[in-house]
């Protein structure tokens, strides 16, 4: 069973990552600003899903349920953007 301490460490990591995304937004990196922000957001999302939502301890079936909408979301965005750019 996950200890109270683990949750507090994850929370602290989320606070540090929030501070990081805030600080990065004040530096001008061009396109990399968006990449950095999305990367940090995804690390935070992974921490929430793995620890707070207990995905780390779940069966493959639950993992499949969690991942399939992300696959479709990627498909929607990639498909729409491709259509828009190469029309």
């Amino acid at each position, binding site marked *: 069973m996950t200890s109270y301490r683990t949750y507090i460490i994850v929370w602290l990591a989320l*606070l540090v990552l929030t501070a990081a995304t805030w600080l990065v937004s004040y530096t001008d990196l061009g396109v990399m600003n968006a990449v950095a*922000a*999305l990367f940090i957001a995804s690390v935070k*999302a992974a921490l929430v899903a793995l620890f*707070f939502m207990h995905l780390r301890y779940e069966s493959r079936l*639950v993992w499949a*349920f969690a991942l399939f909408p992300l696959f479709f979301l990627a498909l929607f965005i990639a498909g729409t953007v491709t259509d828009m750019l190469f029309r």
Partner: protein
Amino acid sequence: MPEERSNHGSRTADAFETAKLGIWAFLATEVLLFGGLFTAYTVFRINYPALFHTEHLKLNRLLGLINTLVLITSSLTMALGIAAIRRGRRRLLELCLLLTIFMAAGFLGIKYLEWSEDFARGLYPDTNLFFSLYFMMTGLHGLHVIGGITVLATMLIMARRGAFSEQYHTPVEISGLYWHFVDLVWIYLFPLLYLIG
């Protein structure tokens, strides 16, 4: 992994596994609901980068940051509440649920301040594409926060009536998964709208 569980075949354990699949399936539909808006955001951002840049500077970044911290912390208290009832500590669960609801209400209060400020400055959903997306995305997310408060308040009432124990606390776990999802959406909304317009 399922094979590690000693209570294999127990009906309560099976019911819990099924309930978890149910909420994850619901969350999948939620990802796709927000997904339509994230797709629209991507398309318009690529087409109108200058508009997104000038308009996003009109948002109150500090309130956005505070709300991010409030929501992350509410996810912590939710996780701690579940850890508590897994150990049979009912009073601690009640306290954690109360704190989570309190922070969820705080989030909405700050959102109210932000929107009031936007309206006062003449920024409405029909002002331009950026603000249409901003109000639609934060609005839909706000509705989910209101839904979350309703669910968590129900859990608090049930907990006070002694409905949960170390052996049975499925509704709390399921509600927790929903609440963390609301946090997950905001984790993406905050940088996309406030920081990298």
